């Protein structure tokens, strides 16, 4: 009995909260990017690729320019450019967004691998002391261990992400802009007859999702870690899409979805340290993705049967 208690207290303690938030943040930015586009009825599956491009741009710029701010800026610009390309292909050339997104994802992996070779002459990963990371936030709690673990040493964009959840929710549900955006996604004809330019709106939110995707990538390579690794998103963009679905394109619920992923991830690494087989641990995020998506679909289905044949 004592042994079990010990294991439990090793696994579940205050640092678990921290590591959950830590693991959830890169996914959260991807989720928010997808929430925005989904509100305009665009499934931004290419967010994975945007993040990879952005992560590479951030590391490269930070390394050469010696500034994380410039790195972040480069990542955002990269994200916007890629998103603009996707928006153009989808809205102007009428290509299927899913195909465009998958194309971007594959291109991102291949192209960053190539550029990694060309720029730094390495393959696999690149880390260097000259990469300037994002700052960490530290407060003085007078040595209180619990407060220290809970509230200290966050990377800048971890708390910012949480604030963004609230900001985005406010924008979507309380502002004129948000109302119009949602109408574009829910009933484009209604929006059009209200004099709203539907295509323009869609283009606009794709660009904003590029900004968020850029931040996601920069945070991944300069905040969450301090390096670039091939395919370093490792499905986090897709998990962002899954969390968005889980939340039905609502920022709060999407955030909850991200926390579930983050929790599964950090729980996994603890179990690994206890000696569980690593193959099993590596499987956890994907199993959780499937479960979360199933839950989301069940919710949606139930909502739909409840309201059939209204008008």
């Amino acid at each position, binding site marked *: 009995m004592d042994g079990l208690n010990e294991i439990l207290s090793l696994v579940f303690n205050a640092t678990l909260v921290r590591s959950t938030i830590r693991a959830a943040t890169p996914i959260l930015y991807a989720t928010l990017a997808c929430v925005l586009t989904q509100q305009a009825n665009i499934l931004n599956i290419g967010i994975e690729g945007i993040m990879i491009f952005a992560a590479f741009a951030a590391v490269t710029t930070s390394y050469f320019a010696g500034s994380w701010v410039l790195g972040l800026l480069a990542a955002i610009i990269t994200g916007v450019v890629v998103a603009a390309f996707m928006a153009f292909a989808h809205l102007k050339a009428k290509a299927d967004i899913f195909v465009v997104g998958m194309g971007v994802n594959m291109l991102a992996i291949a192209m960053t691998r190539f550029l990694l070779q060309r720029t730094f002459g390495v393959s696999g990963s690149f880390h260097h002391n000259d990469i300037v990371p994002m700052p960490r936030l530290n407060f003085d709690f007078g040595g209180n261990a619990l407060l220290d673990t809970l509230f200290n040493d966050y990377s800048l964009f971890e708390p910012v992400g949480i604030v963004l959840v609230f900001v985005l929710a406010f924008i979507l549900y309380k502002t*004129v802009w948000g*109302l119009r955006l949602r109408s574009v996604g*829910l009933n484009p004809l209604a929006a059009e*007859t209200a*004099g*709203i330019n539907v295509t323009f709106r869609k283009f606009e939110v794709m660009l904003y999702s590029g900004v968020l995707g850029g931040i996601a990538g920069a945070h991944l390579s300069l905040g969450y870690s301090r390096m670039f690794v091939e395919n370093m998103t490792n499905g986090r963009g897709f998990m962002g899409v899954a969390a968005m679905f889980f939340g039905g394109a609502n920022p709060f619920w999407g955030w909850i979805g991200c926390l579930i992923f983050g929790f599964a991830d950090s729980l996994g690494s603890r179990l690994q340290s206890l000696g569980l087989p690593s193959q099993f641990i590596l499987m956890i995020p994907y199993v959780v993705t499937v479960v979360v998506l199933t839950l989301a679909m069940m919710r949606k289905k139930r909502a739909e049967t409840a309201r059939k044949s*209204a*008008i």
Partner: protein
Amino acid sequence: MSRILIEMKGICKEFPGVKAVQDGLFSLEEGEIHSLIGENGAGKSTLMKVLYGMYVPEEGSIAVKGETYPSLTPKQAIGLGIGMVHQEFMLVREMTVLENIILGFEPRRGGRIDRRAALEKIEYYADTYGLRVHPDKKVEEISVGEAQRVEIIKTLYRGAEILVLDEPTAVLTPQEAEQLFCILRSMKEGGKSIVFISHKLQEVLAISDRITVMRGGKHIATVAGSSTSAPELARLMVGREVFLGGSPVPAAKGDVALSVENIFVPGEKELSKLRGVSFSVRKGEILGIAGVNGNGQSELAEAIAGLRQVQRGRVVLGGAEVQNMPPRRIREHGLSHIPEDRNQRGLDRFSDVKENLAACSVSEPPLSSLGVIRWGKVREFAEGLIRSYDIRPAGADIEASGLSGGNAQKVVVAREVSRKAEVLLASQPTRGVDIGSIETIRNELNRAKEAGAAVVLISSDLEEILSLSDRIAVMFEGRITGEVDSSEADEEKLGLLMTGGGTHV
């Protein structure tokens, strides 16, 4: 009369393969109610969508208040005081009534929506014209009649002085339609000008100052409302004499083909919307089910067709109990079903006409063999139906979403009637359909009956019930309040039963 607000001349609008409007002509004077009538597919909606800026015409000019434009955008149209209530409502179901009304024209304080200001303005219009709505309900929770009032407030809110209503009464109960006319009259008194599109000639005659008739995309005539008559309008619309009304045709009755025994069925909000409904239909007869919409007719049809759970009681079809079977199995037991909502249940709007027509017979020879579809046969089959039901435009490859309302309905009717099933369940089969097609569809129902089918006709149109049914059952609040033989029925008697007065006859 007074000043001319709108003058559309020489309008041409083509869709791939269809000349929807050719040399279209329309004018509107200040303070008048001007009706626009014509067969399904005559181009009424298209002409008005050109006015509202949703379509850009290839040719023609639109003059609004003296200013001439080659085409408009919705934004410009709204700016010029034009508002349109579309045939298919343009509402966001997931949003509240208030949000729908203010969309695009939100009063704001900072970037935020100023709810109080919005509510005040909505209440002003609601009070002035008697448009009762619930601002905080979601659109998916309100009735069709209310949704329409929301659409009207929406246009007024945007500052419309010119209102275009595209078939507003097609989805309303007679009572709701009467309310709508009061609203329209009070708007006219308030100085608004109204374009009213409808297939119901009595309504048109009752409310219009002028009437414009279109046929095949062309302007046929514009007449004064006071100097014309229903037969004349019908002739102008269809181009020939039309005969509606009449009484049920006699036919030999056979055995009971469908019987519903004491069924209880849940509704959307109530636990049992249907409470103990029983009736039976014989081969070779039409049983009409009358009633004010919303008294359980929709649920009854869905329960018989297997689209809604039956909690208690039995549905016997061709000797077998079929309640709660999947819809497909029930069809195999001999049911054909014309659903009341063609857009949601009757058609797949994204498939083409031949696929929609063949949907019920495609799994059997000759349209397929061993699971492989024989497209040549499907096309032949579809073209046959298109010809005999006069579906326009006559193309098997047109996507169903491009059909006008009435022609879409004809596709559904053609598919269901042509199966020659033992029982034909027809829900509102002529809703939103022009009189020429109403004549066709009613003839088809009679022909099915003569061929020995048992027909259940659910309709909120009393005239339709009276002219087709051998027997009439009336529904009120989930029960059948009376059953009368057609020889003893008249509008008065049915009207009494429909409002719950006079229990069993």
